[in-house]
């Protein structure tokens, strides 16, 4: 069954919910767009969510 989403103009699709996708989605909303963030896994976060720390400052990654 196909359900049509009758979203008005001004929407953008971001494919991938990792750090790049999430950042793109956030910036797009700041620029006035509505964003569909499409992620094939059950939760967004991608590989970044698996990292404990980040280089070179070893900050927490989440």
């Amino acid at each position, binding site marked *: *069954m*196909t*359900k*049509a*989403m009758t*979203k*008005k*103009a*001004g*929407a*953008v*699709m*971001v*494919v*991938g*919910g*990792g*750090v*790049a*996708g*999430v*950042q*793109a*989605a*956030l*910036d*797009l*909303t*700041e*620029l*006035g*767009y*509505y*964003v*569909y*963030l*499409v*992620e*094939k*896994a*059950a*939760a*967004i*976060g*991608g*590989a*970044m*969510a*698996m*990292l*404990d*720390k*980040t*280089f*070179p*400052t*070893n*900050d927490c*990654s*989440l």
Partner: protein
Amino acid sequence: MVEAGRSPNIKILSNTDFLKLSGKPGDFTAKLRVRPRYIDHDKCTACGMCTQYCPRHLVDGYNEGLALTRPIHIDYPQAVPASYFIDPEACLHLKHGTCKICVSACQARAIDFDQQPEEMDLKVGAVVMAPGFGRVPDSALDKYSYGKHPDVVTSLEFERLLCASGPFEGELLRLSDRQHPKNLAFIQCVGSRDLGCDNGYCSSVCCMYAIKEAMVAKEHEPEIAITIYYMDMRTQGKGFDAARARAEAMGIKFVRARVADVMPWGNQLKLTFATMDGSHYFEAYDMVVLSVGLDSPADAANLADSAGFALNDYNFCRTSTFAPLQSSQEGVLVAGAFQGPKDIPESVTQSSAAAGLVSALTKKDRGKGYVVKSYPDEQQLTDDDEVRIGVFVCHCGVNIAGVVDVPDVDQYVEGMEGVVYHAQSLYSCSQDAQEVLKQKIKEHNLNRVVIAACSPRTHEPLFQETLKDAGLNRCLIEMVNIRDQCSWVHANEPAAATSKSKDLVRMGIAKARHIKPLPEQTVPVIDKALVLGGGIAGLTAALNLAEQGYATALVEKEAQLGGHLQEARYTLRGEEVAKTLKGLIDQVNKHKNIKVFTDTELVQLNGYVGNFSSQLKSRKGKGQESTIDHGVVVVATGGREHRPEKVLDSPVKYSAKVVTQRELEQRLAGKAKNRAPGSVVMIQCAGSRGDDLGYCSKNCCNDAVKNALKIKEINPESQVIVLYRDLRTYGYAEDYYRRAREQGVLFIPYSMDNKPRLTAGGKAPKVGFYDPLLREEVNLSPDLLVLSTGIVPDDTATLSRLLKVSVNEDKFYLEAHVKLRPVELPVSGAYVCGLAHSPQPVEEIIVQAQAAAAKAAIPLVKGYVSVEPTVSSVDQSACIGCGLCEALCPYQAIRMHKDENNKRKAETVTASCKGCGICAAHCPVFAISMGGFTDEQITAQITAFGQQ
């Protein structure tokens, strides 16, 4: 991430496949399929009861298969969306029609096995592809005994082993016998720079994460011996070489060698390797970590097919040097690792840039689909209202609770004045915890919230947002830092850390009793931009801003646009520079939204975000001045090739026989007969990485390879020798490095203990160096000596003073935050990109300029900026008009005015106020109050400090 989960303008479609894109830019239709979670997202409370009851075990993919979970589960507690899901491939009911224990275990009645896959069509104007990266094939790991021996792990598995939320809760143990390893080896370039698995490129991140993981492992196990086997350490980013030096100082060993194989050897692993001189050695290790590269995503071909764009030879998205984020399908942009392997900050920069490009592409539809978030009416609070404080003490997994006795701290606040509710929270920043917070505020009618968790510097905005959602003024929160400034720094003193936490919480509660709601303030923004610098960065930024619809002034001090890229001739990929640059300049000159000022300098810049006023002065004629009012400013003042007078301790005289890489490039692009002579020696890091400049210039290795290939193309007989320290042809540039080697270019490494000796003056340059392969000194008199001299920023001293921002020790501008805000300057409304930011290749400059333009457009799109409520305010009746505050304010944020009785009074210029409080501390009559930091509040904290 949580931010994305909360935004009313982001619809997260997880468990969803993208099937097909049709239509055209501005009017695409995307077909999607949402797979069932079998759990009603709205009902699931993420309590975890179902996982406890689920009878079946399942290997936990989130923990890289190192732990077990159940078919019904959530990957990690902070997941967004924070609801559980059922893996249909493992669930007993979905596979075999049995079980269904979870249905009765779930008290929220959220489990719904009737859910069906659902297809939907979305109308979208543009698409950003950010599917990330995939895994390198297991076949590339075979020769290292991966899969055959449990103590050979990938770097990602090792990451999970080190992580507090990982399978051993952060303890470093061997998988074979649960013993602490005594020594450990990292093998670099596994599945990268390896044609054996068709991954000829460099993954650009493995050197960094290996150093990081080695350092973290060393922190966990100070006694452990760690060796990193590498070919080139490609730590070219800002501050990366310094991190490598820190790792070396910690005792981590770096060995330049190729590892042939890893074999089980007793209860250890035998690692065989060959060093640069061709000798073979072996060494035994308790554990081996494979630094696996980033492969293209498994569904890359599918995605490309569905959306109609092309892939490159390695199955990543195909783009070009001058349009790095544009896929071959118009309206489909790419960002992150799918564009090419890269690290997090660079991915994030690309994402911002892609957002800006979308904004330019579909500007006519901007705002049409935008949902303005509404908050419940703010609960009015008067001084007479009873103080009702809720205290939430966070475990932060084991980050806090592993040291601090959290239940004890929680119990401690019981009965304190004003505290009507207190509770513990596993991760107070998670989405479900925000829901709990909202609920508790309502349930207990809380009007102040104390969160004892991490730093307000990172997490206060999140909690403030939740307060607004709960109908409270966002300033009615006080965060107590018991993680960054307590559990993390007193890891070995749990009792003392607990007692410190109690003190800090008591002081926080004391302050909370006195916190008051503060009004939200906004400042209007002039919707114009100023871009400083007319090189590739400035041109790109100006064009993007103009295409997004904003009037932009572009200021260039030289007579011509184009900057130092005018001196370049061709790119590593062989693209011609001049034509593209000219096209860009023409576009900028013709654009109706851009006003170009050449031969012009900025002489003054006043104002603040949204309301800048700049004075420009022509460098020609009478030096005509003009004033520009603008809301934002982008700094793109560029850089140029360095020209050191001394290289590797030898004085240099540039001549026809001693040239820089840029000079060589120009010569090779020319027509002179002898432009590619018979013998050429190139010296890398001739000025960079501690020779003269402290940093890696990031371009010179690519330039050397590019020019070496050109020489070979013109004169295949020419002998080209490149003397280098680490050859940093990261990403796809590795292909050209390999090609150069195939064509006979000799790459010979040197170390800083044994530098090449140069006679780099006059007509007969000479080079002497040690050849590790021949194991002897070699002396040459090449026809041409080429110095890879690196990059320096153009004058940043004057402008940094005008802008009141700082530069780092290398004279590049200091960004607001290296990872989170890489293109923003610390002054609000000011952005930086290109070589003024850091040395980088042209492709990265373009992305960064697009990102800066995207970020700069945000206040222009909004039309206003919000000001933090923590600014000063002057009690007009108490002010005696002495003017001390105006004189002391470092930001010109207080000015004197006359009131209705013609008395001198001070007033705050809200948009300029940084909330420092110098005025309040000096006001002789205590007429100035600092939002969120009043005398009353601070005094209450000090008093509470005394009540131990």
